[in-house]
């Protein structure tokens, strides 16, 4: 890998612009209780997640301040056990924080009830997992339809939208296949189609290429790349620097807090680790 930054990836921000961005982020995360303005998709303030393991408290997140604008493509890195998945689960509304605020599209998610969270997951969030998490007995099409089922959308409309989403990931010819009749890369495409079918405001991916060979990984990364270019907000956890290089911004977690939040220092850190 001669170019860590990925030559095909145009740098959209100058150093100066970066600085002002950083200042704005700092400002928005330091106003507890204030509703962030609409340009922020995600704002977390002092986000904590602790697990009580029979008396011993595990602090997975120890106060994360994170602000992400619409259309950003963010990679989250960090060593194993640093809290990346924990953060993704909170941002994806699969989990609720022990303390701190989480604002999604101007809604305070951290105090929502389970049913409200289910609705937010359904409408606002597309989640892609390392292990695909497809229903094994359902066809690709039905898997993609599922979020629409829980959105209460009628069968015809559902099929139409699910087909569209599968076309976006070039799988229109595999719609009636079940997951075990698909390759790993194809399965992950189905999962991506499923995540996109409800037009979510954020697309979350937790090590989406972790279970794929490098050739297939590149293909899947291309899909995310294209989505980001077309304006989709993407947050992706990855271990691999060359994958993170596709992102316009890299957040590094260490021991449950953000260790750095800009590309350059992130890569220095990454290099130092290697």
């Amino acid at each position, binding site marked *: 890998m001669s170019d860590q930054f990925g030559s095909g990836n145009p740098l959209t921000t100058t150093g100066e612009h970066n600085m002002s961005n950083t200042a704005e982020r700092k400002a928005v995360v330091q106003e507890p209780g204030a509703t962030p303005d609409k340009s922020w998709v995600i704002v977390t303030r002092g986000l904590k997640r602790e697990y009580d393991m029979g008396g011993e408290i595990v602090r997975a997140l120890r106060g994360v301040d994170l602000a992400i604008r619409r259309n950003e493509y963010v990679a989250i890195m960090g060593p194993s056990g640093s809290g990346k998945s924990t953060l993704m689960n909170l941002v994806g509304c699969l989990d609720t924080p022990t303390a701190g605020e989480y604002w999604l599209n101007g809604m305070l998610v951290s105090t929502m009830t389970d049913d409200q969270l*289910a*609705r937010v997951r*359904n409408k606002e969030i597309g989640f892609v997992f390392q292990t695909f998490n497809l*229903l094994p007995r359902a066809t690709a099409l039905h898997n993609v339809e599922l979020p629409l*089922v829980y959105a209460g959308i009628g069968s015809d409309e559902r099929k139409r939208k699910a087909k569209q989403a599968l076309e976006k990931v070039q799988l229109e010819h595999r719609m009636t296949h079940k997951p075990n009749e698909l390759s790993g890369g194809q399965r992950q495409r189905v999962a991506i189609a499923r995540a996109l079918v409800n037009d979510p405001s954020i697309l979350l991916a937790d090590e989406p290429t972790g279970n794929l060979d490098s050739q297939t990984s590149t293909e899947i990364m291309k899909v995310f790349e294209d989505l980001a270019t077309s304006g989709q907000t993407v947050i992706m956890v990855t271990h691999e620097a060359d994958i993170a290089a596709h992102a316009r911004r890299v957040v590094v977690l260490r021991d449950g807090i953000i260790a750095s939040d800009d590309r350059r220092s992130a890569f220095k850190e990454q290099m130092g680790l290697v």
Partner: protein
Amino acid sequence: MSLADVIFTALGQIRSNKLRSFFTLLGIIVSVTFLVAVLAIIQGLNAYVKENIADAMIGANSFQVRRTPLNVARFVDEEVERMGRRPLISRGDAEAVRQAFPDAEAVSLQSGWPTPSADVTWRNRTVGDVLLFGVTAPHQIVQDYRLEQGRALSDVDITQRRPVAVLGPDLAEKLFETVDPIGQEVRIRGDLFEVIGVNATKGRVLGQSFDGYVLMPLTRFEMMFGRRATTTVSIKMRTAEEVATAIARAEEAMRMARGLRPGEPNNFALETSDALVDFWKTLTQLLFAIVPAIVSIGIVVGGIVIMNIMLMSVSERTHEIGIRKALGARAKDIENQFLAEAIALAFMGGFLGVAVGWLMAAAVAAASPLPTRVTWWSVAIALSLGAGVGIIFGVYPARRAARLDPIAAMRAE
């Protein structure tokens, strides 16, 4: 999530586990089959008793004037004792009733229950334990007997106490085989009787032949056995509808004949074949109470099996539940999905049970003379029990599924 989607998903699950679903349902299927079939058979027995036994004993469209009621079990001891002091039913009573019923098809007087039996001998051949009935001529009409050979008993036979007999076809067959029975003399309790007729067969009732009997003039019968307390007047009307009003007229005629003052109680009883059916029904009522009780136990056990399988299914499908929740399923959606599955299962069990029970009832009807009847209410009980069991035993597993945490559930394999 729409109701259609809930049901569709539930049926999809059941279909993808056909064999397991079937075994899950076995308890409910068997219980419901038992309920439907047994109730149908009891229903059939009741109809059979009405049509074959009660009518055979009392006669179709007929009622009786008796000294005491048929179903004595309904009365307290003192009443029964008082009945013991009632006057016997006499030739005069029969005559009074006959005069009050010019429109009756027939009015007869005959010996009542218990019917005595005796050996009947012809030459060196003897048939044992033959039922002996003392009757008047119209008895032939009341009982709808048709003659196969010879003639019936006549009024003259009665008044002259002639030693003549009409035989049931079974008895004639056994005694005479190929010999013509008419004019032959048979010996009954030492007396010789001339055979004047043989009746046509009435067939078998519950494997019991009603065709082995001797009919003799009531007068002759009383020479042998004396005047009995159970002698009965039978009145046969032309249609079943006439019976109800005819009973009132018979009561009137009897009170006049007996010289009873207004307010004095009847010293006789009036009975239709309904009384016999009633008597039978008090016996089967117990069955009607016991069968659903046994079935309830079976269904509860069946419900527990369903609950068990559903719990198993919840833990097997934890991963799936996690995925569904991650994609936006609310707790209620998951609960409804599993509840719908349990109800659909139990309902199918009830439905299959009804179908099998129906088939069994039809098989019994085809293979036996019982006109088994599947009643709508046994089907209603079966299906509502099924659905009820599904709800009651489905709620717990469904709640458990609904409460699962999405992250933990997705981590399960």
